[in-house]
């Protein structure tokens, strides 16, 4: 039988939709069209979601707090105020009143507790962020009290883009299939699912949730559509024609062009994402620290940043600017003579047998490829042959877990605005390798890492120092990693969209509620 396609779903870009002279107070009928380069949703479960769908879920679900990139602090969202006690081991959040789930149920402390506990139990996605929680109590309807095993910055954790959503767990459990199939959502956010068609070009449309606690003003966007557009050039042409409103990432050349194109605004913002070049400290030639140091010196950091043409800025240490623990004075520099000397000591280099190293990086990533190209050329001068291989992430990671390469290239960014994950996930030794892809095993470093959360919660100054020391140790002493640059987001919006602010804690997320068309 015939089935009507798209009834309800209505992606229509705003450009041209608003005739001149229309006042801002008139109802905004336009659809905001977002052009992601990948499929939007892989996992609809707010507990385990850990992928690209953040760009949609962040508008459907909310957490207790949200990170403010300008003030570098968490600010109220579903919690209106909070306090900590016992040296950061006890946290009390006051819930906002009058908040309703999309299911119609009210948000109270019990519901919030249920959601967080379900997320913790799911143990999937980023659920680990709640790892410090010992127990949750609800002294009254509007209060949520966390008791922790060790001190942790709960206000920041609660602002995480993943696994921190409060949702109607009861309704979810009752309608699990509907939630999984994108027919139902159980959030509190300003938008709710309108239609979801996996694999279609316009994969997902959202519509305003009428009973949103923040209320609705006429000029806000009531409809949102996600139009999947893998090719950057295609996306760029669509935004130029006004068929989409937001392209999450352009390359520097298109970005430059966007800056000069009428009807398009180019937006650039630093991110919390940096590139890690991890050296195999456990096996192979890179086990020799001198080889690793030589590799660090072989990278043409300045050349790379120049060639990135604005898509990245030179890094100083492991922690990007804007986060606690960011240090200066660790800026690396290429020094081929030093690299040659170090290799010579290690028994390689121009006059010795050729050194062959394998490297894996992400397929389709132009910036990583640039690094690889430059590194290959540089290493060739010191008689090192780099066998670089681009792989899909899954395959690359699988191989990485087996320790099957000398150099592993990947991006890292935190789940919430905190530097801890760079250390805990990437450099703390582990039985089962997950992201410790330099295979570093150092008791002293492990010990220092374990002390960080409490330090951060109790003595920020000491924490800053501890972060700085650790970075020196990992980068200079152990030479386990080279950090060439921090990525800069380069995005394009149609000129008629006002109010867009990039928030590095929520990569690629547009908070549609905060936008309005130019009047």
């Amino acid at each position: 039988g015939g089935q009507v396609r798209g009834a309800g779903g209505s992606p229509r870009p705003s450009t041209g939709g608003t005739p001149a002279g229309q006042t801002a107070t008139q109802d905004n009928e336009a659809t905001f069209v977002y052009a992601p380069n990948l499929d939007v949703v892989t996992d609809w479960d707010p507990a385990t979601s850990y992928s690209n769908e953040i760009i949609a879920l962040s508008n459907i679900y909310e957490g207790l707090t949200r990170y403010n990139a300008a003030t570098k602090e968490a600010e109220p969202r579903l919690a209106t105020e909070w306090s900590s006690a016992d040296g950061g081991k006890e946290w009390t959040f006051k819930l906002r009143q009058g908040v309703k789930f999309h299911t119609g149920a009210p948000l109270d402390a019990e519901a919030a507790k249920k959601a967080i506990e379900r997320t913790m139990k799911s143990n999937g996605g980023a659920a680990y962020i709640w790892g410090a929680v010992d127990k949750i109590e609800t002294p009254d309807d509007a209060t949520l009290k966390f008791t922790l095993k060790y001190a942790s910055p709960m206000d920041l954790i609660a602002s995480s883009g993943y696994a921190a959503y409060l949702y109607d767990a009861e309704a979810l459990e009752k309608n699990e299939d509907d939630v999984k199939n994108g027919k139902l959502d159980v959030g509190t956010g300003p938008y709710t699912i309108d239609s979801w068609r996996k694999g279609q070009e316009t994969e997902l449309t959202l519509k305003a949730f009428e009973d949103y606690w923040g209320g609705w003003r006429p000029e806000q966007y009531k409809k949102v559509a996600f139009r999947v557009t893998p090719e950057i050039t295609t996306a760029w042409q669509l935004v130029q024609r006004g068929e989409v409103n937001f392209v999450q990432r352009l390359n520097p050349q298109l970005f430059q062009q966007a800056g000069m194109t009428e009807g398009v605004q180019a937006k650039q913002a630093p991110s919390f994402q940096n590139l890690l070049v991890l050296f195999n400290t456990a096996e192979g030639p890179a086990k020799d620290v001198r080889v690793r140091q030589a590799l660090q010196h072989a990278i043409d950091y300045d050349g790379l940043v120049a060639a990135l043409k604005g898509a990245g800025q030179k890094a100083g240490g492991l922690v990007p600017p804007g986060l606690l623990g960011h240090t200066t004075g660790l800026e690396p520099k290429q020094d081929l003579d030093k690299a040659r000397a170090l290799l010579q000591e290690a028994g390689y280099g121009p006059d010795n047998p050729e050194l062959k190293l394998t490297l894996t990086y992400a397929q389709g990533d132009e910036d990583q490829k640039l690094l690889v190209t430059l590194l290959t050329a540089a290493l060739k001068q010191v008689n090192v042959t780099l066998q670089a291989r681009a792989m899909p992430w899954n395959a690359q990671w699988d191989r990485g877990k087996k320790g099957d390469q000398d150099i592993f290239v990947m991006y890292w960014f935190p789940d919430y605005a905190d530097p801890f994950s760079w250390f805990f996930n990437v450099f703390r030794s582990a039985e089962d390798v997950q992201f410790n892809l330099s295979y570093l095993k150092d008791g002293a470093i492990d010990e220092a890492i374990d002390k960080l959360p409490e330090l951060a919660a109790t003595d920020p100054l000491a924490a800053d120092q501890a972060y700085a020391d650790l970075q020196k140790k990992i980068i200079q002493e152990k030479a386990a990693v080279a950090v060439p640059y921090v990525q800069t987001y380069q995005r394009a919006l149609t000129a008629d969209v006002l109010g867009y602010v990039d928030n590095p804690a929520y990569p690629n997320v547009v908070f549609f509620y905060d936008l309005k068309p130019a009047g």
Partner: protein
Amino acid sequence: MPRHLILRLGQAFLVMVGVVALTFVITRMVPGDPAVAYAGPRATPEQLAEVRERFGLDEPLWVQLAVYVRDLATGDWQTSLHTRRPVLEDLYHAFPASLELVGAGLVIAIAVGVPVGVLAARFRGRFPDFSVRLTSMLAVSLPVFWLALALQTVFGSTLGWFPVAGEYDGSLDTTSPLTLWTNITVVDALITGNWPILTSTLAHLALPALVVAAYPAGVIAQLVRATLIEEASQDHARLERALGFRETTILTRFALRPALNPVLSLIALVFAYAIVNGFLVEAVFNWPGLGRYAVSAISHSDTPAVAGVTLLVALMYVFANLVVDLLQGVIDPRTRAR
């Protein structure tokens, strides 16, 4: 004829069996651990084990093969690890768009290639022939992704004559929603008389279909030209000349029909080629078809999905070949006698 038909079907079946076995082997070679792909990047070993068990990934290979064949036969093409929906259902949504694109491309290719081939044969050795040959050789030499980008930039972006991407204007979904019968937008719009969607889809189809058509059109033009010249040098063309027929009449009324036979068998081959070529074209024009599905399945180590696409394309190929074989009998009575 029925015996021939049965024999032909039997062969097609055997080929399908081979394809299934080969598909299975290949899916076991696709990168990455499918369990990891399904369970997500930070899954625990227990979760992985559970996923492995759920999908039978812990069984010995031959058991997996047996299960695979049984499931295929019963219409269970497994569940995509990436979209988490039955592969058959995904294909049901993605394939019609590809069919639409490739179908349109082939129609253009035939509509252009055949007459142009006739033209070249009619004026062989003269200027029209020369230019047709040159153009058709260019058409088969163009890297398809390059052509796609060029056409998109020139006709879509710069001149603005055609839409640059997508299957139709999405806002039409509200103003004139389309009732789906076949899932092929053009066909559904046609049978339900939905003109806004039809015109929008045709406009969106123009550029990508042209890109898909380039290669087959070139090959068809060359083939038609060659076979027509061959036919026109046969004794029977001499007789037709001796009877006073015009050269053009001889080519179109007498020589073209036998010449269409090789063109037909070519089309079955080109069909599969065009689907795969379509993968690249679909990426550029953001066409919501099989190609996009396949490319994303490949990059997500989505074994069942890759297998599904492979099987489907192979199935289409075998089917197209079958149809062509039967059609050939209609076009050339000599093959029927065999």
